[in-house]
């Protein structure tokens, strides 16, 4: 499991879902930061500079897409994954344009979830190795 070396920002307004995912992530990653909406997520991102950002799309105050856009403006290579039931096609088109390339299918399949996270972790490791060469 590569994830144990990585910090994760997880943004979700539904508290039940948040609790479940937080438990899963806490036991497998270095540290998890939790935010309840995009605005909070953005503030926490600036403060903690996590390796990976995971976010729901529809949230109050600032949605996952607006937050992703703001993060990508600060750091275009920031790995971001969005939770989606693939019913928000206009959002997903916009997300792809913003450079968000990883999606986590809802309802959650735990194995697939970890495969996606490990894929992102692998991408970060390789980018790091490349920049050190």
């Amino acid at each position: 499991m590569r994830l144990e070396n990585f910090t994760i920002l997880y943004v979700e307004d539904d508290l039940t879902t948040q609790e479940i995912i937080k438990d899963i992530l806490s036991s497998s990653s270095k540290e998890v930061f939790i935010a309840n909406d995009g605005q909070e997520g953005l503030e926490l991102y600036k403060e903690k500079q996590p390796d990976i950002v995971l976010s729901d799309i529809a949230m109050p105050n600032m949605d996952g897409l607006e937050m992703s856009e703001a993060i990508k403006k600060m750091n275009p290579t920031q790995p971001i994954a969005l939770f989606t039931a693939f019913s928000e096609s206009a959002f997903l088109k916009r997300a792809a344009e913003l450079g968000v390339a990883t999606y986590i299918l809802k309802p959650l399949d735990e194995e697939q979830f970890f495969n996606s996270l490990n894929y992102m972790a692998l991408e970060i490791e390789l980018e790091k190795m490349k920049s050190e060469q």
Partner: protein
Amino acid sequence: METNLKKISDLINNQKNIEDEKKFKLASASLVCTIVDINQLPPKKYCKLFQDNLNLPQNEFELIQRELNNDALNIEDKVSYIKNELNNNMYQIMEFLKILNKFAIVNGCTQKSYREFELIRDKFLREFY
């Protein structure tokens, strides 16, 4: 970082001749066609996508499309062939996967196309996770 098959091909030592290149393109196009229904893509858009990302101009793509119809598609075989051609090089494999990812999401992501991408991605990477 923008990536395309030409850049990857240029870095692969063992793709020395046109036949090898054609075989590699055919295997790559097979995987793309598993992920996206190319008939659902606007023709202009897919032509540009295949040209830009897989170095496949329209005439060459049409030839390969005909071959694809006659080609018994075994995804495991294609993945294993491509991995081998990429010398099992993790960096090259990730660059290749970025191309497949782009095809999966570029026309508005659907659950089916993204799921197919994930299945193929995980076949490429299972020993690296």
